[in-house]
């Protein structure tokens, strides 16, 4: 659920320019209390009021999971996006108040792993930053759980656009390999994958084509799917406006071109469940009562069979075109 009681009211305590496209936003709790600790790879949903348009975008926490004073996210400005990152980059000021969801983790480290192989593309570095801090902290502790070794492979366009490059390369605990597109366009990691000890888990975060390439390469050298984890941060795609009927609420709602179905449902005053807002967690799954048209499924939650049966839709990501769509909401 959206669960208003479990929201964190925060103040922007600092905004730091990381590269010419990436800024780090640091938050502290408005009531002065400590943040809950989180696990590396977790994200929060940031609520924004952008001139009357309510935006809720998920961002990975990249601060130290054990730091309960400050949460931090790093955001790349997407000039062609729907506006969430632009709002953060151009309108949000130090001292402003923002609302965050509690942290949720859909990209956590597997604690049974003998080693962690991390592959980041561009701003996809962010979940790894908190995971690395977590792993480094665990190394000093007693016991073996979570003490696994790790290595990071980081793909970006050029050094100047590579967030936290200096921090990572200066850190003796981080085994870092960088790939700048112009130098290594093939992105062949099969050699790296094939030399990993048994029980290694692979994590990839970045743009979708890169995730697909990495997964295919790992599969081609015999990696089992159970040891491969991925996270893709995608905003809901804009599309043709459409109309949806909400049977339980008795409402008919228009979904705008640059609005997601979930956002339209929320704007109509209906409290719909959600968690990741990126089509990955399954929380917003909604039953279809009637559908005369085509569902544009943009999530990675529903299986092909579920899609074919036209019985459910993920409103955070997916759209509709046709004459009639009725949802059980």
């Amino acid at each position, binding site marked *: 659920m959206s669960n208003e009681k479990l929201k964190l009211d925060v103040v922007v305590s600092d905004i730091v320019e990381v590269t010419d496209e990436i800024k780090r936003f640091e938050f502290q709790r408005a009531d002065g209390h400590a943040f809950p600790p989180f696990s590396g790879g977790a994200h929060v949903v940031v609520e924004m009021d952008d001139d009357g348009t309510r935006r809720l975008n998920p961002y990975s926490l990249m601060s130290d999971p054990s730091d309960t004073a400050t949460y931090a996210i790093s955001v790349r400005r997407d000039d062609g996006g729907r506006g969430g990152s632009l709002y953060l980059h151009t309108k949000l000021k130090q001292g402003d108040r923002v609302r965050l969801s509690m942290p949720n983790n859909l990209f956590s480290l597997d604690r*049974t*792993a*003998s080693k962690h192989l991390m592959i980041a593309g561009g701003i996809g570095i962010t979940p790894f930053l908190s995971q690395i801090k977590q792993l480094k902290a665990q190394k000093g502790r007693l016991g073996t759980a979570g003490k696994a070794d790790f290595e990071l492979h980081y793909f970006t366009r050029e050094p100047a656009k590579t967030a936290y490059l200096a921090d990572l390369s200066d850190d003796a605990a981080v085994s870092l390999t960088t790939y700048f597109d112009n130098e290594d366009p093939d992105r062949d990691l099969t050699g790296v*994958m*094939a*030399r*990993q*000890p*048994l*029980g*290694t*888990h692979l994590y990839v975060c970045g743009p979708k084509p890169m995730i697909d390439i990495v997964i295919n390469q790992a*599969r*081609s*050298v*015999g*990696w*089992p*799917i*159970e*040891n491969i984890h991925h996270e893709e941060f995608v905003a809901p795609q804009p599309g043709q406006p459409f109309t949806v009927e909400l049977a339980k609420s008795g409402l008919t709602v228009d979904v705008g071109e640059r609005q997601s179905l979930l956002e339209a449902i929320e704007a109509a005053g209906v409290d719909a469940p959600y968690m990741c807002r990126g089509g990955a967690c399954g929380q917003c799954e909604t039953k279809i009562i009637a559908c005369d048209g085509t569902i544009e499924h943009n999530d990675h939650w529903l299986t092909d069979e579920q899609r074919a049966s036209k019985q459910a839709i993920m409103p955070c990501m997916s759209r509709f075109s046709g004459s009639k769509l009725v949802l059980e909401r």
Partner: protein
Amino acid sequence: MTKTHFEPSIKSRPVYGVLEARTGSEHVFVANAEGAEAILDVAKVADKDFWSAAHIIYVPGRSGETFQAALKALGAPKFYVASHISSALNRLVRSLEDCRMGTQFYLTGTEGLMGQAMRDIMAAGISHMSIQTEHRGSLARRVQCVHCKGIAEDVTTDPYQCPHCDLHLFVRDHYSRRLAAFQAVRIDAEDHGNVPPAEEVFP
């Protein structure tokens, strides 16, 4: 053919598939007795090259010499015949230290062999979901007495008498992947001495 049909049961009860040659850097087979036949079935469809990266650990058990020559003829560079499951598992555990990601695991034979090999491979960080299994041969079970925790190998009857604490036990389909054993509970717990005759239900 000794492919086994199991009646549907509770979720805990392991289910087995049919081995298929997968893409991988190395192919580790652990088999006992009639499990050899499942390996030979893979050989009917796999490329010859496949066996050049294979490691076969085989416990002949009741099958004796029957399949050993045929298995050896597959040409795996590592072919090891173990006199007992425990020595096969020792070799498996040692070889896991050198395995890299991309290694494929194939287990076939009795449930006791497959369960213990799976337990050891899981301990090396591979999910049970990515380990292939195919049941062949005896239905004998590896069973833990829930009372004294003693493990009995090759249990073929139900009820059976625990060799450790002498209780008469009902063998459940409730399986522990961690222990690689089915769970057995006292059959006459509420009416001491009322023990039905043992039947050979896991021949």
